[in-house]
């Protein structure tokens, strides 16, 4: 049986150390998120004021109760449980906002590269305009127009990512559409839509997949940042950025309350970056050389 390109990619990925590390880290977080109801010993919202500011511990503070592995917060909520439920939010928000960037950016960029002419000019200038804003500022502007809330933050982070994916898609389409097999499809009588979706776009996916993996990390970070600023999820919703915002004032008295949400965010972003680097080494070696 012949090895398809897809299988070959998998085989190479399994030899890549960054990919394996990233996959390990992320699969841990994904599992925690999926099984949150089963793993988390406490609810993410139930307060127990008798248990405030408990430091991390492996032993129970109350008989018959699960230990507070990562301690409790200023309202006596179990931090471990809150972070596990928070992983769910971060993953969903990260994936969905990257999906928005990827779909809209990819399609707009592909259209610009394939159609050329004034279509290309209009779309490219739009991308330039969006990239001229600092991304977090643009996201804040979008949220302030749409209104606060996690859904709008997700949308804003997605929109901010559009030009990044768009420019990559445009560049890939520009090079791919000149290749002989695309010309061959034309000479066989394939129409422009078929050529774009069957011959050009699938061969432009690799750099976009790499960008998407890296993008999830950025999106998680941006979402946490916006939530920290009070624009996203609201307490008691255990978004990691929101947790940080609620707890940072206690950092002297209960440093674990700040450290663990921060470490969670870091683990997620690091996992995405490692995964992205591993994918890049395999899918897009030329990009890796450029650094």
């Amino acid at each position, binding site marked *: 049986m012949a090895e398809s*390109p897809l299988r070959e990619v998998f085989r190479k990925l399994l030899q890549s150390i960054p990919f394996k590390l990233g996959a390990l880290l992320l699969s841990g977080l994904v599992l925690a998120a999926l099984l949150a109801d089963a793993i988390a010993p406490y609810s993410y919202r139930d307060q127990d004021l008798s248990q405030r500011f408990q430091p991390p511990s492996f032993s129970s503070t109350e008989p018959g109760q699960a230990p507070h592995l990562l301690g409790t917060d200023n309202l006596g909520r179990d931090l471990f449980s809150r972070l596990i439920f928070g992983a769910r939010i971060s993953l969903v928000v990260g994936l969905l906002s990257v999906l928005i960037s990827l779909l809209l950016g990819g399609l707009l960029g592909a259209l610009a590269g394939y159609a050329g002419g004034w279509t290309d000019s209009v779309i490219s200038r739009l991308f330039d305009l969006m990239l001229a804003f600092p991304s977090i500022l643009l996201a804040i502007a979008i949220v302030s127009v749409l209104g606060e809330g996690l859904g709008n933050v997700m949308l804003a982070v997605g929109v901010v990512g559009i030009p990044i994916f768009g420019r990559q898609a445009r560049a890939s389409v520009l090079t791919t559409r000149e290749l002989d*097999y695309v*010309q061959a*499809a034309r*000479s*066989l009588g394939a129409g422009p839509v078929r050529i774009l979706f069957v011959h050009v776009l699938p*061969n432009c996916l690799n750099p976009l997949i790499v960008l998407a993996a890296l993008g999830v990390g950025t999106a998680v970070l941006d979402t946490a940042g916006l939530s920290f600023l009070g624009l996203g999820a609201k307490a008691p919703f255990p978004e990691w950025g929101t947790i940080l915002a609620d707890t940072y004032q206690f950092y002297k008295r209960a440093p674990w309350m700040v450290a663990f949400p921060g470490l969670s965010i870091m683990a997620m972003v690091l996992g995405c970056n490692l995964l992205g680097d591993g994918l890049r080494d395999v899918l897009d070696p030329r990009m890796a050389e450029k650094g």
Partner: protein
Amino acid sequence: MFGGGGSPVRAVDQVSFVVEPGETLALVGESGSGKSTTARMALRLLEPTSGELYFQGEDLLARRDLHSFRRKAQFIFQDPFSSLNPRHSIQTILAEPLRLHGLAPRAEIPERVRALLERVGLRAEHAQRYPHQFSGGQRQRIGIARALAVEPELIVADEPVSALDVSVQAQVLNLLLDLKEERGLSMLFIAHDLAVVRMVSQRVAVLYRGRLVELGSADAVCTAPLHPYTRALMAAAPFPDPGRRPGEPTLQLTASNSDRGCPYAGRCPLASAVCKEEIPALVEKASGHQVACHHEGPG
């Protein structure tokens, strides 16, 4: 928005030829002489900015829908490594033309693909593989099979063997010649290798800097070239004939980019004042043998 700038290059200018039914016309010239551009324009893969293009008496440039033309005329690419979509299996690649033109019911497509593969000397089980698993020569055979799938009447082959190892060039050329005989194909064959040209073509058109400088039967052009450029080209070709002496000095690289005059004047050993002023017209010197030179004629 920021388009334009610089003067456009005329890659091909006033090149005019006819490919007769069942004939192979070779288009020769050095790199950059406009061979590939001409070949691609012939199939409207590139749009000529001006000129005329007729296929079986019909004006191709007037057509908006080329679908039925695409069935009758096919292209074979020079580089077998970039002419096959790396993500598609050979089955998908060869089925595409059949599907696009509705040439076979879905159930018969695998059988047709198998027949195509076998015709070009590959095996039926190769259909499940991907392009990167084949050698250059095998890939070129797949490219040929793809072009044949629509049962075309005209094939435009852009240096189909120049990217291949010498050892497989002859095999692929023989395959092309067999197919041409078998199906009565007309062929426009782009080449820079004169030995190849003599082997495959009945007539030869010589391009220099985007202009046609000589056109005649393959024998006449190869044995009694009229244009000094063609003669230099023949002299530079490594024919396996130890008794043969180069008749002309090798090309001198003192080309000028003047718009006026014969494009070859800067390099031509015969160049005189008139050559720098006037572009020579293509005139018939012997029966079916045309040349564009002020000093035409052997000797």
